[in-house]
């Protein structure tokens, strides 16, 4: 028989098949399973752990307590990160900037390096890398293990469960909560994770909106700005708390924007109903602390840090060069900053920040180091190495970093707008490439890239306008 004939014969024979054959077959499998399971499993006594788990679940997934607990957990993680990063950050800055930088400078001088070589290598390459390490390593080394432990414990599916009805209401898939939490680690990873969503429409929504989940490279920016600009507005005793709440606010704004943009997409260009799915709540498992530390330090912290350093090193060289290549009576960097100062002012930022965002397209991680570098080199604050006393995360008014940025014309408004802009701007080049690979569509890649920038410009512009109106 030819293949077509087999198919034909099968459809003839189908008439002989009882109508409910499939159901009867499934029932049979289930009945058999139940019998075998009953014969071979015995429950000895009552299980304390089971009742404990049920109680915990009824608290974590409760309609009234589930949401607040989620927010509190995130706040606690952020607060521990901010408080805990202070001391090691100061130590690293002390070592790498206060002692390392002058030491290398002296070494270069005694080796009779030409001024441009020591400039490129020590003021460009080394200084940028030192900043990346001292600013980023401590918060990451605290944040990632904490987050991984929550994941290990089994909390993430509960988050998905709690947020499912919200996602359904905006016409998106409930599993988007999972891909969003992955995005809090890395947007590129979050976008790959959207493969768990079967419907192409809902998957596209999850991909486009993933950028509103603050990633690795952006948490440190948020934490740093909140600490040195917003924390200082409060009395020292609650400074850490205020900073944590500010960062939490930005993260939650990201969640809100995820919902708003998902809703906009699903009611306009990506119309359709939300599809159903099964989500099994796994048992709570005690996190394996040592393994968690190992995987989150090696797999996440060091890889992210390495990526930042790899991108920061050439960026440092580029930066030093554009700051030292003269063009008429100013350097190339000064021209760029000067040109972008106008549009920057309109959205509460400045030229330095916009140049930094262009330089930092390969990696969000280097935005802050680039900003610092450009500020130093364009405002001409001399001797950073000597001045950058190990107080990068110190929340006192004398913090050198704050002074440096204030010398560059920064106000609280600049910090607030930068925090918002850091949430809403184009994804890094790795993420853009991942979006293209996953969607195979130039159109959706462009939408995912430019939609956040437009939202960011509108948001920052509005905040700056209102702020200036009220502060006169």
């Amino acid at each position: 028989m030819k293949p077509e004939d087999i198919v034909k014969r099968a459809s003839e024979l189908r008439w002989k098949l009882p109508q409910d054959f499939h159901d009867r077959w499934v029932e049979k499998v289930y009945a058999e399973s139940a019998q075998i399971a009953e014969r071979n499993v015995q429950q000895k006594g009552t299980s304390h752990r089971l009742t404990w788990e049920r109680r915990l679940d009824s608290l974590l997934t409760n309609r009234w307590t589930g949401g607040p607990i989620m927010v509190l957990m995130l706040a606690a993680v952020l607060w521990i990160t901010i408080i805990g990063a202070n001391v090691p950050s100061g130590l690293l800055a002390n070592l790498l900037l206060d002692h390392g930088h002058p030491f290398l400078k002296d070494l270069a001088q005694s080796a009779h390096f030409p001024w441009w070589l020591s400039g490129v290598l020590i003021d460009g390459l080394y200084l940028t890398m030192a900043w990346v390490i001292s600013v980023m390593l401590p918060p990451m080394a605290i944040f990632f293990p904490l987050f991984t432990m929550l994941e290990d414990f089994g909390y993430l599916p509960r988050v998905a469960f709690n947020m499912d009805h919200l996602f359904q209401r905006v016409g998106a898939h409930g599993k988007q909560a999972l891909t969003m939490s992955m995005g809090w680690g890395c947007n590129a990873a979050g976008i790959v994770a959207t493969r768990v969503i079967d419907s192409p429409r809902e998957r596209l929504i999850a991909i486009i909106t993933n950028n509103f989940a603050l990633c690795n490279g952006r948490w440190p920016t948020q934490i740093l700005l909140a600490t040195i600009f917003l924390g200082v507005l409060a009395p020292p005793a609650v400074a850490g708390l205020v900073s944590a709440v500010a960062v939490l606010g930005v993260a939650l704004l990201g969640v809100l924007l995820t919902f708003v943009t998902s809703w906009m997409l699903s009611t306009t260009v990506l119309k359709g109903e939300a599809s159903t799915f099964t989500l099994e709540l796994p048992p709570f498992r005690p996190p394996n602390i040592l393994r968690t530390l190992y995987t989150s330090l090696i797999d996440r912290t060091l890889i992210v840090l390495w990526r930042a350093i790899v991108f920061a090193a050439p960026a440092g060289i580029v930066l030093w060069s554009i700051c030292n290549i003269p063009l008429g009576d100013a350097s190339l960097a000064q021209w760029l900053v000067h040109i972008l100062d106008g549009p920057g002012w309109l959205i509460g930022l400045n030229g330095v920040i916009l140049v930094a965002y262009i330089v930092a397209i390969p990696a969000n991680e280097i935005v802050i180091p680039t900003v610092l570098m450009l500020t130093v080199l364009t405002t001409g604050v001399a001797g950073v190495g000597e001045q950058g006393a190990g107080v990068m995360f110190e929340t006192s008014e004398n913090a050198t970093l704050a002074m440096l940025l204030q010398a560059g014309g920064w106000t609280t408004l600049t910090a607030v707008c930068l925090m918002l802009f850091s949430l809403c701007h184009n994804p890094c080049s790795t993420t853009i490439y991942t979006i293209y690979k996953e969607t195979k569509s130039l159109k959706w890649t462009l939408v995912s890239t430019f939609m956040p920038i437009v939202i960011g410009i509108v948001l920052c512009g509005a905040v700056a306008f209102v702020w200036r109106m009220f502060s006169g």
Partner: protein
Amino acid sequence: MAQTSGANCSNCPASGGGKLERLGVKLGQSDFVIALAGNPNTGKSTVFNALTGLRQHTGNWPGKTIARAEGGFSLGGKKYKLVDLPGTYSLLSATEDEEVARNYILFGRPDVTVVVLDPMRLERNLNLALQVLQITEKAIVCVNLMDEARAHGLEVDARGLARDLGVPVVLAAARQGEGIQELLTEIDAMANGRSSCAPRKLSYDIGSVQESIDELAGALGEAFPNMPHREWVALRLLEGDPRIVEAVASGEIGVLAEDHVSTETINACSR
């Protein structure tokens, strides 16, 4: 006569000490292919990591193994390729994950399929195990997460389960490395044809159904002589599963069947 050379020794199961060597992803040509199937969140990836020495990301949430992951180990001089399939509840419906798993077990022709079960949800997990046993003879059941089951006060009768299912059953707690050695021993024995099994098959208990299946399976056997699992394909044809109908009509099913991954198929189960 006097040829007691190394050639004979290396064939003997006692040689090589049966020592596990974890190969990670560095596997060239493998001697055997082992598939890992199971419901979501039963710790398949943890079992996978324990066997291969890889650190594939495991997370306590379902659905994180998206496509299939592969790794390898070497035991008693033989190389094994291990394939971690996405977690599925059943092989009967048609989500993307279930299709990956189903096609692999059916047409990837793994030498052994290890079904990982969660003892706390054994009834639901057994559905999948029984469905897998319908389509393959060479299966091992691994009841994982035994540490949690004990904490819940559950006792699992491995011998009883093995008797009811007709395949070897290993109790394990892969996170602690418990039961991994036993699992390896069973895999080794089954892949090398040293153990035999007679998995429980459910009969399609309606007379005319069995007749129709036999007729179609016979026709399929003529059209695609190398195709395994003819009965199962025949049943899906009869039920009008659109993907299977299409695969048969286009002849694609023959390609699927020939595209098997194992270099040689060893009949480990004597029925």
